[in-house]
């Protein structure tokens, strides 16, 4: 049952709803076991690039003259870069988009995790650290690719409005590392948010808020994952062992409350990074 659905890596569609496919999650009648359902992931169609779509692809030696077509004559601002009418429209669009995103940004400071976790940020990656009776517990996650695809069915046309747009929620995979004093190895848990529990729909959710995918010993502080260490996968694990592992994490502050707070933190971080990216993109396009 806890066989994890592999996260379909997909970035959120914020500016446009095109290019996604969604599958409705089957609601299970409770007269049958709600735990017997199978969920199917959604795969975004691969978007082929402009180069690929041209019959004469890059391999033919032919280069389409994208910038010499009508209506996109180059303009120069003296920076020796190319500027087109399209770039100008793009820049204007980004200005509006940044304004809108800042409007919906609830807070600019990141929420604090309860339980005395210290946050350290490095770009899109975050590390939470906590010392419990000499034991060091760290949780790392990356907000990139942390927004699951939208599983909800398309709303009826009359219900569609800006207000009913679903919230973008970041549910990153996260790695918990527990290091005991005077040991060279850390016990490492690879955790994730099962997709049907990530705030979708009103059906009877059937997965835990978060789940352990893999457990292994790794040399302390090593950045590189040591593939030669035995890795316990939870796909076909004895449930009693799994429950002990979950209790072990809970005793170290990684429980459902933590997992919920992590979603809040990650969602806000992701939004900050998104706005920052839009600002960088705007600056790049406008040559600021």
């Amino acid at each position: 049952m806890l066989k994890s659905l592999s996260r379909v890596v997909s970035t959120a569609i914020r500016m446009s709803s095109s290019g996604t496919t969604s599958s409705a999650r089957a609601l299970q009648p409770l007269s049958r076991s709600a735990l017997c359902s199978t969920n199917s992931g959604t795969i975004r169609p691969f978007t082929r690039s402009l180069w690929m779509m041209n019959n004469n692809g890059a391999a033919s030696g032919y280069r389409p003259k994208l910038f010499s077509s009508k209506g996109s004559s180059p303009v120069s601002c003296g920076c020796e870069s190319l500027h087109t009418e399209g770039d100008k429209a793009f820049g204007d669009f980004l200005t509006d988009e940044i304004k809108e995103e800042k409007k919906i940004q609830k807070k600019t400071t990141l929420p604090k995790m309860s339980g005395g976790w210290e946050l350290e940020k490095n770009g899109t990656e975050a590390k939470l650290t906590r010392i419990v009776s000499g034991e060091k517990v760290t949780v790392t996650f990356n907000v990139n690719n942390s927004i699951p695809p939208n599983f909800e069915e398309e709303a009826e046309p009359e219900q569609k409005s800006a207000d009913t747009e679903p919230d973008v929620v970041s549910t990153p995979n996260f790695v918990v590392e527990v290091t005991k004093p005077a040991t060279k190895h850390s016990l490492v848990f690879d955790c994730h948010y099962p997709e049907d529990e990530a705030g979708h729909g009103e059906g009877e959710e059937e997965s835990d808020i978060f789940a352990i995918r893999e457990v292994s010993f790794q040399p302390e502080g090593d950045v590189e994952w040591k593939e030669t260490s035995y890795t316990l996968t939870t796909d076909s694990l004895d449930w009693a062992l799994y429950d002990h592992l979950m209790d072990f994490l809970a005793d170290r502050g990684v429980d459902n409350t933590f997992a919920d707070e992590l979603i809040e933190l990650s969602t806000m971080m992701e939004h900050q990074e998104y706005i920052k990216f839009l600002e960088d993109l705007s600056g790049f396009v406008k040559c600021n």
Partner: protein
Amino acid sequence: MGLVLRNLQNMVPLRRARLRKDVETLRHILGIQKFDLGLICVDNRKIQRINNIYRKNNTPTDVLSFPFYEELRPGKLPCPLHRDEQNLGDIFLGVEYLFKQCQHESRDLHETLTSVTAHGICHLLGYRHESKEEWTEMLQKESYILNEFNRFTGRHLVPLIKTFGEDR
């Protein structure tokens, strides 16, 4: 698959391993190890919603059972023909509701969860308590299960329903 345990709430800290061990003991006593059973721990908000949908009762409660076999004669185990029919159904435990009740009555939460699960399993096995006769029959079964449980574990669990007419 066996016992599938889910904790969908963050209001009450749960010891999953202990809950599993206790419910596995109940399954052993009843001889239902070959059947799948879902045990889902939820908060007040969620159990209230389920209660409203399926029982038209818009209040939180302690336990809701959803049998896989709806027409079982009490005490008769189902005879599944296929593997996917080796399923008794799901029990939703209102752990937040039970936690508050335990605080109020100074009872141990995990012991209460086990008693409540025994009650839920009885429902999955066809027991009801709508009439006085049904109630007596169910109370007898619950008492038997918990007496056996106490004998195995040295604990002192008591049945959930004590008087006829309790709404469960």
